[in-house]
């Protein structure tokens, strides 16, 4: 798929399939094209060339089916100043053809911590509360595919956790989830597969596990007395700073060998820290290389 805004080439040949039931992350720096891609899926924008489908329906030709299948939490913090939270959720249900939906609306309000705000005007809510309302609005019609464009931006820790446990529950119940976020630890713990986008191109697409394994090693940082690394361990050295040696480990078993090597050489360990690679390291590496 391609998308151009005048001379700006925002999506350059993105080719992507998300499987049903997946928990998928779409990552990338600001301006990479994540929202553009989501907008095309949601029918808010049209691809310059290429096509996309949701649950087998083309988003242009069969827009009623695809919109019914999608629940989108937009990135922009938008609200309609005239109405209360409950009114908004009722309208949203009605737009999707649902006449009586109060039971599910109440459950959404409960899960998103909005119960006591149900009758507040949306304009009077704090930023994080408005974000919660957007999430609730996206879910009123129990869409099989849920797309969240930075749902946790500006949301407090407590809600972030309850929001994710709610979304995880929906995922377990079979809903497909696609999210964008700049908090990479969220993507790492939640998502089974990740696409990384840079300047409109996919630069990485793999399972979270493979990305972590392939791009960053577990490391051990050692402070030694005397501050000298035995010859036999030199091959593992990846860096040296502040009098600390950083050794790369392919697996934890190698730690045993490192310690044995030190003991044999008569070097004492003053301080030791094992660091696991995280998605942020991988992300930075990939963005730098691409």
């Amino acid at each position, binding site marked *: 798929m391609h998308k151009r*805004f005048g001379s700006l080439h925002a999506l350059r040949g993105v080719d992507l399939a998300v499987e049903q039931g997946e928990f998928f992350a779409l990552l990338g720096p600001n301006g990479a094209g994540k929202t553009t891609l989501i907008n095309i899926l949601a029918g808010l924008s049209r691809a310059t060339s290429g096509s996309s489908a949701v649950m087998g329906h083309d988003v242009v030709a069969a827009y009623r089916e695809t*919109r019914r299948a999608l629940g989108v939490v937009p990135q922009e913090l*938008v609200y309609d100043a*005239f109405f209360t939270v409950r009114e908004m959720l*009722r309208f949203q249900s009605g*737009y999707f053809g649902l006449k009586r939906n109060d039971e599910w609306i109440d459950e959404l309000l409960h899960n998103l911590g909005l119960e006591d705000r149900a009758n507040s005007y949306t304009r009077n809510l704090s930023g994080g509360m408005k974000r919660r309302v957007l999430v609730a609005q996206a879910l009123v019609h129990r869409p099989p595919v849920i797309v969240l464009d930075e749902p946790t931006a500006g949301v407090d820790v407590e809600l972030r956790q309850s929001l994710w446990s709610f979304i995880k529950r929906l995922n377990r119940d079979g809903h497909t989830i696609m999210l964008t976020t700049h908090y990479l630890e969220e993507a790492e713990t939640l998502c089974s597969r990740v696409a990384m986008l840079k300047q409109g191109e996919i630069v990485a697409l793999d399972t979270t596990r493979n990305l972590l394994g392939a791009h960053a090693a577990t490391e051990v940082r050692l402070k030694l007395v005397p501050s000298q690394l035995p010859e036999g361990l030199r091959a593992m050295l990846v860096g040296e700073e502040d009098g600390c040696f950083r050794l790369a480990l392919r697996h934890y078993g190698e730690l045993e060998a490192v310690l044995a090597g030190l003991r044999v050489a008569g070097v004492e360990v003053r301080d030791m820290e094992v660091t696991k690679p995280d998605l942020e390291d991988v992300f930075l590496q990939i963005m730098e290389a691409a």
Partner: protein
Amino acid sequence: MTGLWTLFYKEILRFWKVSLQTILSPVVTTLLYLLIFSHVLAAHVQVYPGVGYAAFLIPGLVMMAMLQNAFSNSASSLIQSKMGGSIVFILLPPLAYWEFFSAYVAASVVRGMAVGLGVWLSGYWFAPHAIAHPGWMLAFALAGCAALGALGIISALWADSYDQLAAVQNFVIMPLTFLSGVFYSIHSLPPFWQGVSHLNPFFYMIDGFRYGFFGVSDISPWTSLSIVSGAFLALSLATLWLLKSGYKLRS
């Protein structure tokens, strides 16, 4: 149909919640016109035989208020949600473009009729008059409001700012309604301006509506109704086409 019905209901609720501004205030403004013009001009103008000037003014003022408010209802609702971004709430659901159109136009008609009724009732109290043909009256009221509701959608789709929409309202809608024979019969104009008036579609709305009141008009009501319905049809087709193409909504 639930989607269409919900959107219509939301649009009604939107203006109803601020009815002081959307209904009462235009009613009061129009009554001020009635009081001032009928008082100042009553001695000088006798348009139709047997119809006092105040009574003559009422249908024109009612129609003018209806048209302006029908326009303003769809236009301001749409531009607000476009500028504020809440338009996504109706772009994301599976609403068809004709449902979008119908809901906005129907809500515009309701708002126009509510204002019109308010102006008419208070005008009646001020200068009681008989109604010759209620059917014609209703037909012109409906067609006029619906046409302006559609025009409101087109204008708000086109406008990229509140300022541009205000320009349409102040430089197109206002002059056309004011110069459509609300305050005079165009027969009192010089021939050239009579000719120009015939190019103004709002003239036919007001003239036909006035026929409903007094059973007299400058033009046959059948001609006027055909022109007004034609205008409504053309504006509707244009609006539907714009909505279908996603003009400025789905870039």
